[in-house]
Structures are given as structure tokens and as C-alpha cells.
């Protein structure tokens, strides 16, 4: 394990060097991300300029949920971006062979090989929104709450990672699964708003089937209202661990079925 962390450090250092080569690319990428966030916030503001609250949730509360949703998403985005490449082209081009000729678990190798520094933008915007909304709402965070926050972010990120692993693994059978992953990943947008606004079908799906609600609304709900920590925080941990287990099973099955490319 120590070895993996050391290797991870080396990859991060390498990546920084690469960023310096493509710094304009990096800056424009980060800037465009920021624009997207501003547009989303602007959208929420326009809505609240016309209504006092959204089914019982006020502007700052919605901002808090939105900001919180960026944290696990950003963490996952930073750490496991290479899974996207697996599902879009690494398998299809036959470049996946490389991971199988190395004495490291291929999944770990794929994950630690690349990062996405753009995700820092997600993280910073998220922290800013959560902090400013907390201040305006007069929320107070005790030591336990902060601990819960960290747990919720880390395990929430694990939910994203698990979904990505499962659908990237699909590429090991069908060569290219990027768009299917995209489809499921997009459904995480549901979690950015209170699940109470959705009908029961969607509510059930995003709670138990593709449990993105645990990456944002449920934990945020606990911090906003103090309600039901067992479900809102405990649920994140339980669901993410189960999901990770399932994903790793799928991944391992995929490795067995992997057919490589070319003759």
C-alpha cells in the first residue's frame, strides 16, 4: 500500500510537469469550468428572483446543497478521471494491454495514472458556496459535524468512483462504453436539488439504484436540518461500500472477458 502511495506521488509530480507544458490549455479549461458554475448559480438566482422558496427550501439552502454536491464529485473527478478514458478509447485502441503487463492491480494502475487538476476548480467553488451559504444561514459546525462532512465527502466520492468503475468495466466487453457512463453520470445532476421535488420513481432510483442522492442531497440535508444522521450520513457509507464491492466484481469479471484488440 505504501508503495502505491509513493507511486501516486510520482504520478502527481509528473502530471504537474505535463500541466506546465500545456498551461494555456489547463487555464482555459479551468476558466470554462468556472463559467459553467457561474451560469448554474445565475440560473438558481433567476429562479429565486421570482419565488420566495422552492417547496420549502430557500435560496441559501439550495446553494448549500448545490455547493456540497460539488465536493464529492470534485474529489472523484480529481482522482479517477482515467476511468473515462478507459471507457471511451483506452480499451478500443488496444492500449489497455499495457496495464495487464504490469505487476500492479490494473484497476489501481488505471486510477493512479492520471488526475484532473480542473477538478480543483469544482472543489474550490464547492467549498466557497458551502461556506458562504453556511454563514448566511447561521449554521454552526461542531467537531462531529466536521467529521461527518469529511466522511460524507469521501464516501460520496466513492459512489461516483464505483459507478465509473462499473461502466468503464463494461468497455472490457463492448470496447466502448463512454456514452453509457456519460448517461449514468449525468443523472448525478438530479442530486443537486432536494429530492423532495421529484416524483417517487425518480426518488427511488436516485436513492437506491443509482444512489447519487447520497452524494449531495441527503448529507446536505443533515447539515442543513440536523435530521436523521443515521440515514443521511450512515447511508452514504453503507451504500458506497456496497456499490464499490459490486463494481469491483464487475471489473474483475470484465478482466476475464477482455479480448484485447487487433489480431
Amino acid at each position, binding site marked *: 500500500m505504501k508503495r502505491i502511495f509513493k507511486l501516486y506521488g510520482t504520478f502527481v509530480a509528473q502530471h504537474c510537469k505535463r500541466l506546465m507544458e500545456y498551461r494555456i490549455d489547463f487555464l482555459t479549461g479551468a476558466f*470554462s469550468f468556472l463559467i459553467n458554475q457561474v451560469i448554474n448559480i445565475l440560473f438558481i438566482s433567476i*429562479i429565486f428572483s421570482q419565488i420566495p422558496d422552492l*417547496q420549502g427550501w430557500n435560496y441559501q439552502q439550495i446553494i448549500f446543497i448545490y455547493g456540497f454536491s460539488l465536493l464529492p464529485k470534485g474529489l472523484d473527478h480529481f482522482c479517477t478521471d482515467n476511468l473515462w478514458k478507459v471507457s471511451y478509447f483506452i480499451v478500443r485502441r488496444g492500449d489497455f494491454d499495457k496495464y495487464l503487463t504490469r505487476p500492479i492491480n490494473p484497476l489501481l494502475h488505471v486510477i493512479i495514472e492520471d488526475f484532473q487538476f480542473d477538478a480543483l476548480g469544482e472543489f474550490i467553488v464547492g467549498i466557497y458556496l458551502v461556506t458562504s451559504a453556511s454563514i448566511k444561514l447561521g449554521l454552526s459546525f461542531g467537531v462531529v459535524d466536521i467529521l461527518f462532512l469529511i466522511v460524507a465527502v469521501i464516501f460520496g466520492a466513492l459512489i461516483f468512483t464505483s459507478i465509473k468503475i462499473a461502466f468503464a468495466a463494461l468497455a472490457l466487453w463492448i470496447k*466502448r462504453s463512454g*456514452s453509457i457512463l*456519460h*448517461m449514468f453520470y449525468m443523472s448525478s445532476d438530479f442530486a443537486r436539488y432536494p429530492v423532495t421535488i421529484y416524483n417517487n420513481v425518480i426518488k427511488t432510483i436516485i436513492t437506491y439504484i443509482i444512489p447519487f442522492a447520497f452524494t449531495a442531497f441527503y448529507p446536505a440535508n443533515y447539515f442543513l436540518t440536523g435530521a436523521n444522521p443515521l440515514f443521511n450520513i450512515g447511508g452514504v457509507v453503507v451504500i458506497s461500500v456496497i456499490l464499490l464491492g459490486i463494481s469491483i466484481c464487475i471489473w474483475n469479471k470484465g478482466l476475464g472477458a477482455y479480448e484485447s484488440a487487433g489480431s
Partner: protein
Amino acid sequence: MKNPFKTYSAFTKAGIQDAIAYRANFLGFFIGEIFYCFVMFFIWKAVFNSSNSPTFMGFSMIDMTLYLFLTNITVFLTDTDSSYAIGEEIRDGSISMRLIKPIKIDLSLLFFELGNKIIIISMVFIPIILGIETYRTIATGGIAFDIVQFLFFILSIVLSYLLSFYLNLAFGYLAFFLMNLWGFNMLKGAILRFLSGGAIPIAFLPIWLQGTLKIMPFASLNYTPVMIYMGKYTGTDLIYYIGLQFVWVIAFILLCKFIWHLAAKHLCVQGG
């Protein structure tokens, strides 16, 4: 020149086959976008429930629903790969494979994508339009479908696509001058999403901004066809906005020719 359509229809055929080969890919992508529509739908439903007024800045819930799904399908139809495709070809040098053939680069790309679009139209556009119309008929309690309006919508969407294609092509040509386009592509995507009304209906923005955006080419990208479909543009408005789209298409075709001309010189200077 012989029958140009015959030359390029081969590209269209290839495009159709390509789209079929990757149908799972684009269907997955499409369903992802539909998810997004439903997120927005429920948010708007909650907004209208929380509001005392039956309209929101002039949009009823029915309008809003139509707007969401129409914008999405319009973006999907007018979306183009040309910027990315040409950018990559320039970067890895495979553009020379196009240069050595007796064809026009823009047309070969365009006709290839046309094949893609034919599949998209048959697989998602028709069902979505049927869905939208069913919803509109049930929600308004009468048939609101107007064939003339619909034909103008089709015309407008064709112009939107051409504009989108040449705008992106011009952008892709930048790869002749810049080393890497990835960041700029992201930036372009973000800005276009906002300026074209993809993220927020232009009608919700401050008046001064609305005026500017409607004249700029971006609104022509997908706001105009959506407004036509919804019956918000009629009479002289309709003619004006379609005329505007037409002007922008011509402008960007000329821009592409100009950049290509510059780039060709650039290539000579580098000695190939």
C-alpha cells in the same frame, strides 16, 4: 465538376454506417441528455408550484416544458463534431489525407455528418417530436400543431446546423495556429451554452443583454428554431430571424474560406 451530390453522397453513406456502428454510444449520450431535461422539468415544476403566478417571466409551465425538450433536441441535432474532427486531423497531420483527394474539406465533413444526422433524426428526433406534440395536445386540450410553423422550424434548424458547422469549423482551423485545442474547446462549449440560450432561456436575461444576444450569431444556433416551434416568433419577426440566421451562415462560410486561405499560406511557410 460532375454531379457533386454523387461525389459526396459516398460520405453520407459512410456517415450512416458510422452512426449505426456507434448507435449504442449516441443513444447512451442522448438518454443522458434526456435525464438532464427531466431534472430541469422537475425543478420547474417545483418552481411553478412554489410560485403564486401561473407564468414565470412570461413562460407558462407548458412553455417551459416545451422549451426544455425542444432546446435539447435542437442542440442534439445541430451539434457538430467538425471543430474537434478537423482540429485533431490538423494536429496529427492526417489532414493531408483529405488534401490529396479531389474534394472540398468542408463538404466532405459536412456530408459525412449528414449521414450521422439521418440516423439521429430517425432514431430520436421523430419520437421526441411525437412525444412533445402528444404532451402539448394533452396539456392544452387541443391540437396546437401547425404545419407551416413546423416547416419554418425545419428550415430554421437546417440553418442552425449549417451555422453551427461552419462556426465550429472556423474554430477547428485554429489548430493550424495553436498547439492544443482542448482547453479552448471547453471554453467555447461553456460560452456557447450560455450565449445560445442552452442554459437559461434568453428571455430571462436582462433586456439589454437579450437584444445583443439575439442579434449575435449565438441565438441563431438554437434559440431561434425553438422560438419558432413554440410560436413565439410569427409574421415579420419570423422572416427577420430566419433572414438573420441566413446572413450568419454566409458570414461564417466566408470566414472559414478566409482562415483556410491564411492557413494554407502558413503551411507553405513551414514547408509542408
